[in-house]
């Protein structure tokens, strides 16, 4: 067990090193940092009482947006690149189980996401302080929930990456992210007495399937609560983290099972 964890950690750290030395990744990080800092300039353009709102909204949005872009772009290449560049031959011929490879790669991706959210959150914190917005505990909760959401997006990307091409994986992953953000609305539409599912009842099974299968990613967005200064209890955060973990476990397990059966020709 200990040696297995050690091997996964080694693969994870190598994955992290790969991203840290990748110019595209560094470019994305710098771009996201610039956008967060740019919210200072944007806030100058609005009336004074809206300035706090702008820096709060923009910062959180860009952390999430940059995280999703990085999750998709790096996640879809995570396994594919090993196959494409044939580095998989050297790696899997070592004393490593195939599931350890998938878990290790995902672990590395998670380390990347932690780095991204922490660095961008620190930049956001600086912007908030510069605009005299007091740092509240709910900001930490918001960042934690963004990380939980990104963990699911990355797991989806890893799953597709284990059997599909990067372009298709990217389209599927981004599609699931968009759908995941709409799951709550679809649920509400299914309960509504009028609207799409009433006028077209044949679509109801599809709507129900989407809400049953796809993760409800709106759960991780507490931007509105921050804005309205509504308290977000730790119980809610804990439940959301548990929800995220469940999806990650299921998705990475499926990815490992798919990978287990493959021939590396």
């Amino acid at each position, binding site marked *: 067990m200990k*040696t297995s964890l*050690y*091997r996964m950690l*080694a*693969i994870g750290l*190598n994955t992290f*090193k*790969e991203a840290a*030395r*990748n110019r595209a990744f560094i470019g994305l990080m710098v771009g996201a940092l610039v956008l967060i800092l740019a919210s200072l300039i944007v806030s100058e353009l609005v009336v004074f009482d809206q300035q706090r709102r702008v820096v709060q909204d923009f910062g959180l949005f860009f952390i999430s947006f940059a995280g999703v872009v990085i999750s998709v772009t790096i996640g879809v290449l995570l396994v594919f690149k090993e196959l494409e*560049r*044939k*580095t*998989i*031959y*050297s*790696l*899997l*011929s*070592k*004393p*490593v*189980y195939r599931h350890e490879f998938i878990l290790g790669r995902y672990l590395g991706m998670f380390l990347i996401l932690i780095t991204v959210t922490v660095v961008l959150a620190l930049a956001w914190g600086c912007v908030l302080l510069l605009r005299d917005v007091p740092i509240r505990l709910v900001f930490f909760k918001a960042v934690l929930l963004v990380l939980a959401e990104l963990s699911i997006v990355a797991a989806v990307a890893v799953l597709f990456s284990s059997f599909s091409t990067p372009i298709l994986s990217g389209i599927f992953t981004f599609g699931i992210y968009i759908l995941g953000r709409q799951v709550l609305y679809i649920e509400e539409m299914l309960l509504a007495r009028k609207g799409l599912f009433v006028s077209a009842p044949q679509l109801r099974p599809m709507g129900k399937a989407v809400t049953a299968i796809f993760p409800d990613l709106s759960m991780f967005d507490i931007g509105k609560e921050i804005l309205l200064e509504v308290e977000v209890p730790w119980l809610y955060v804990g439940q959301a983290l548990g929800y995220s973990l469940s999806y990650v476990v299921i998705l990475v397990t499926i990815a490992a099972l798919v990978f287990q059966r493959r*021939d*590396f*020709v």
Partner: protein
Amino acid sequence: MTDRIMVVEDLKKTFKVGFARKVVEAVRGVSFVVNQGEIFGFLGPNGAGKTTTMKMLMDLIRPSGGRIELFGSPPGSIEARKRIGYLPEQPYFYDYLKPGELVDFFGQLYGVPRAVRRKRVDELLTLVGLDHARDRTLRKFSKGMLQRAGLAQALIGDPELVILDEPLSGLDPIGRKELKDIIVALKQRGKTVFFSSHILADIELLCDHLAIVHKGLLKYFGATSEFVLQGQKEVEIIASNVSASVKATVVARALAVEDFGEKMKLLATRADAAAIVELLVKGGAQVDVVAPRSESLEEIFVRTAQEEGA
């Protein structure tokens, strides 16, 4: 009794390719055994099924039939793989790493302790001649340098069995000589080396045993010396001052004749050679050379590969 560390029995692999899922038999019942401490050559032309077989040994491809045993375990066994170092064909590595980082990373996967790893990485980079390139990332490496880095990563776990897929390709003559020296040194340290190559002269000099595959079928498995002996079926005789009457007699018994006027060269079967020499001597000719004519390993290889059933 020698320890059989690799047993391959009736190994088969079929692939379904293309839209029509056409079945291709890449490996068709290959069997051989590798003993501890020997150098084993695995020969075959392109598309013979060598790399597919080697990937099955490393559990990168799952067999469609047959059996593989490495150190008494199936190829997917972690315990078996801890004892094996593998260099894939045309090695591709993480090009953002430096050679030391690459070898160290793989050392971690073998569970080599950090202090041992550090020492071994240094030794291996020196052994494979990459001392001068320690600070360069692998993306700046030539093919030959990558091959050297590949050998270093294959040896980081101090494996008992080293499996090398076309290790000599991409190396210049000096590199090939150095690699052959390393292979011999590994054998002297009690290691077993299993390698494939197209450079047949290297196989002849290095390998104790060899297996030849062609179109997925095993064409030969046995000692290299016996294989080379197969090519010594003919005897070359060079004689001078051969009279016309003797010439007519011996030419009838020879397989081939080259007449240079004063001298003539005859090629005879081993069975006929003695009689021809006797005729020449009795007829007053001078016998200059009687020598077994060995086919080169390359000639035997091509002939064996093309024999019936290919």
